[in-house]
């Protein structure tokens, strides 16, 4: 017998359940309890960068959009810097007006989720290879046993996307498209539309990160 390894084991995940709103976005559950609520409004007046809206649905294997999903996103600022001490990239500055994180639920009636944020810059990836601008998604819901991780890329970043080390890891080129949000410029603020398909023909690429 060898010496035992003394690592602890990661706690097992459990579904967020149908009532996840109570804990994480109580206003959507139907009541007001906290003075300060975490929301989908990520940019203030003074946040640097291009203001954008990210909108979409989370769709199950029967083609039905989920009305009870909870999404969080995590992204760099417009300089491509994450607001975190481990981001020691030499270029770009932290933006005090931008945490880079937001949370929301899909709407009980329309099943649409929405974030108001800014477009991130490119971030340096492994081996100094630039990653195209992207937003990291985490999705939980009733029926999802362990949070799903994916990334959203921007349709107007054609060259950067073509060179992105993560998109290029996806063997089937057709599936890379599942991570690219289309841009709609018809309104005051550009809207990127990003549907997440949990299962089936156009299933979104999810990552084991």
């Amino acid at each position, binding site marked *: 017998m060898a010496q035992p390894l003394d690592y602890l084991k990661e706690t097992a995940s459990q579904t967020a359940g149908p009532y996840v709103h109570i804990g994480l976005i109580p206003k959507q559950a139907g009541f007001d309890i906290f003075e300060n609520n975490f929301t989908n409004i990520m940019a203030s007046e003074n946040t640097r960068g291009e203001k954008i809206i990210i909108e979409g649905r989370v769709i199950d294997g029967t083609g039905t959009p989920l009305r009870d999903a909870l999404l969080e996103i995590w992204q760099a600022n417009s300089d491509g810097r994450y607001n975190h001490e481990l981001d020691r990239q030499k270029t770009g500055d932290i933006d005090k007006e931008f945490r880079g994180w937001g949370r929301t639920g899909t709407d009980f009636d329309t099943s649409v989720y929405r974030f108001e944020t800014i477009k991130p810059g490119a971030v340096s*990836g492994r081996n100094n290879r630039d990653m195209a601008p992207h937003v*990291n998604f985490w999705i*939980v819901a009733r029926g999802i046993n362990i949070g799903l991780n994916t990334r959203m890329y921007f349709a107007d970043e054609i060259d950067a996307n073509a060179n992105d080390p993560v998109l290029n890891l996806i063997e089937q080129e057709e599936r890379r498209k599942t991570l690219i949000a289309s841009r709609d410029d018809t309104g005051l603020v550009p809207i990127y539309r990003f549907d997440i398909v949990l299962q089936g023909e156009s299933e979104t690429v999810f990552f084991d990160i």
Partner: protein
Amino acid sequence: MEFYQRDRTLQPAGYAPIYKTSVARSPRQSLLSLQGSLSETTGPVFGQNELGPLDHDLIRNYAMDGDPIGERIIVHGRVLDENNRPVPHTLVEFWQANAGGRYRHKKDTYLAPIDPNFGGCGRALTDENGYYFFRTIKPGPYPWRNYVNSWRPAHIHFSVFGSGFAQRLITQMYFEGDPLIKECPIVHVIPDEHAINRLIAPIDLNGSVPLDTLAYKFDIVLRGRRSTLFENRLEGN
């Protein structure tokens, strides 16, 4: 510093037919394994100034004209990582049904009554030792639609951040001795018996307040960070 690979033998699969809702909500393609970059190793930071003084006291944070009905309990423990190091200053959020098994939620129609003095949610930041605590009442079991006669064991939902987005975790805490644990399909999507046992909080008489409140102890372990010994750096510096 990236994270250790997640041990999927201790985690539920997405597709778990005993939990019927998972069937249509689970990916069929394999997850694509990604080595950590800044996008996964960093994550949001929260401050104490964002929390209210009663956010960790579910007995008081929604009380209208008295205390909620139910067994008064303290839940406390540490958030650690796989290296057995505390995860300090991280946000822990929790939510639960009331003593009768009813949630304050517009979609919950169970016939047990709403408690006018109980909201059912709270949050805390761990201290520099990874320690957290909150006060609440013990939630009741409730029925749910899976099989015709499925009941959830009493449980508290937990959400934890850690310091990188790849550590993000949602789980549920169960109570020692609850006979419904062994019957529950949601519990049994976890393929490992020890991993299930780690979700069951023991009663902790030492942590109790005599003549006032019982305590349960619940530690949470997040993924550990790998120190970089001989390898290329993650990012350009």
